């Protein structure tokens, strides 16, 4: 009886020590929170937050070095999702909900320098050296990086307008109380 208790206790203590040591010395450096935050971000690597890409932004968020309002293309939805995940209250006072935009090349001004092509993170710009470029509106996510590098200001950001297919009724006025 005593032998059994003693041997089990000894085993427990030894194995526990090994496990404890393993957790300390073999620990994975990466913060699991980072991966979760990265999944919430748009993943377009546009760099508008000031970090190189979404992964670096997620790392900064996890460390608490960046505000949840850092992602302009994500809009309110991403801010709220991040705030919920991090358990903080988002400061929406300075947040302006941006109208979604897409980049458009004024073809007369394009000199075919390919600078915008190198900036585009989703390969939405077509063209070659000294040939006019054009932007496919469908994959463009409106990061405006191409517009900022264009030497001739040939790229303008245009708002994505409401069409018959995307129009819907707006929210009924708040004069209609429902309790």
């Amino acid at each position, binding site marked *: 009886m005593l032998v059994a208790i003693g041997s089990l206790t000894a085993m427990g203590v030894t194995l526990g020590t090994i496990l404890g040591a393993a957790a300390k010395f073999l620990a994975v450096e990466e913060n699991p929170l980072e991966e979760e935050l990265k999944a919430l971000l748009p993943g*377009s690597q546009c760099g508008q937050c000031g970090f190189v890409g979404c992964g670096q932004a997620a790392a900064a968020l996890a460390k608490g070095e960046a505000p949840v309002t850092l992602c302009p293309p994500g809009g309110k939805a991403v801010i709220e999702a991040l705030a919920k995940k991090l358990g903080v209250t988002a400061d929406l006072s300075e947040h302006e909900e941006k109208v979604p935009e897409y980049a458009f090349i004024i073809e007369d001004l394009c000199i075919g320098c390919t600078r915008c092509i190198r900036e585009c993170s*989703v*390969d939405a710009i077509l063209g070659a050296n000294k040939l006019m470029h054009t932007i496919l509106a469908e994959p463009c996510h409106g990061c405006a990086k191409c517009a900022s590098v264009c030497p001739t200001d040939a790229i303008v950001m245009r708002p994505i307008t*409401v069409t018959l297919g995307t129009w819907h*009724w707006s929210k009924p006025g708040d*004069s*209609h109380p429902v309790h």
Partner: protein
Amino acid sequence: MKLFQVRGGIHPDYRKDQTSEKAIVVMPLPAALYIPLQQHIGAPAETLVVEGDLVKKGQMLARSQGAVSAPQHAATSGRIAAITEVPAPHPSGLPQLTIILEPDGKDEWGELPAPIENPFTVDAHAIHNRVAESGIVGMGGAAFPSAIKLTLGTQKKLDTLLLNGAECEPYLTCDDRLMREHAAEIIDGGRIMAHALGVSRIVVGIEDNKPQAIAAMTQAASAFPTIEVVAVPVQYPMGSERHLVQAITGRETPARKLTADLGIVVHNVATARAIYNAVRFGRPLLTRVVTVSGSAVRTPQNVEVRIGTKLSDLIDFCGGFALRPERIINGGPMMGQPLPSLDVPVVKGTSGILALTAEEINDNPTSPCIRCGTCVTICPCGLSPVEMAAFIRKDNLETAAKLGVMDCISCGSCSWVCPSHIPLVHYFNYAKGTLNDQDRERRKNDRVKTLAEAHTIRVEKVAEAKKAALAAKKAAAAVTADSETTPPPAPSVQEEKVNA
């Protein structure tokens, strides 16, 4: 035939007597026709004509493009005056690309496809193709391309074609008149559709406030034992295909499924007549019957109008306005949508144009909910409108979606019944639109993510290739220095644009 109980529903004042006893009149040619490229669900049609072209009646002006689409045809002979943006018959008043046709007054037919001599012996594909090239879409209002619905037989096990003649919306009598005056054509069209679907049984569902239509259709169907004309109880929204199917079979269509999953395909009676014309005479869909009604109209009546006729011309044909219209409605008063102006055309899905006076509309101020629960009792979809609206009001669309707001058919029964005049269905239309927006955004984000990942991989590959090339060059240079012979040309790697 045994009928089954359908839950909920309301009994509004039908007000069909303004037009139900008047025969369909044909409207003469207007000064111009405005034919939008998109009058249906799916992709807009692609124009085949340019400004200045002379066209004949029945000529295809725009062909369908993509899997879900429908072509547009010239409803008379004349000249293409312009192809430009014109306000759509839509509550937003947003413009859409429209072909403007100036009639030459001759109304001359062009070359039409040959009539299908015996439609019950030809291959079903021939019928599908004819319906598709004739530009026929669901004429009950949804305007879904009919040819696609006729091919459902190849994907699902079907047993019944249900012709929808319920016409449960107040005011509207266009289907009623069509059934009274053209019953034989509708029955023939229905038989052709049944053949195309590969089903033998046809049921015609008509609300029992239309005894003459029921009599006419029963008479026309009497020669065919597989056709049954059924009088269904008057209960709005009986004309919703899910509810009509439930009344006739007792089976409820599951959420986000089609009635075809229960083996039943539902088509409007006017669609059946259009298919009759297309198959028997080769005529594309050029006209439709529209109920013009409401107390503000001087002569309410059912008019057979050419697709593309401006509403202002149609109202003028009906004697103009006798009283000031407070609201112009496209469709019925329950599910129809208000129109900002009369400068829009009649399209394939226009079933009615109502000019309602202030007495006919409910603009009562909203008062607080008294929790009577009537909206829950009458919801024909078994939802809880009061609860959903409360969450939507607080911008909690996620919870509203969990409560089933996407299963709402926007029939408007809850708004109609609410003693506090809370615009419940407006909340649901807003929520459905916003949830669809969010869904679109999510899909776009996923696509951007995939593209960005592909881009990163490509950039890395290019960098590696460059490095390898540089190394090869160096090695080659070293060899050259050693042997003093001509170096082989180094592989040049150019950053090439790949269309992802």
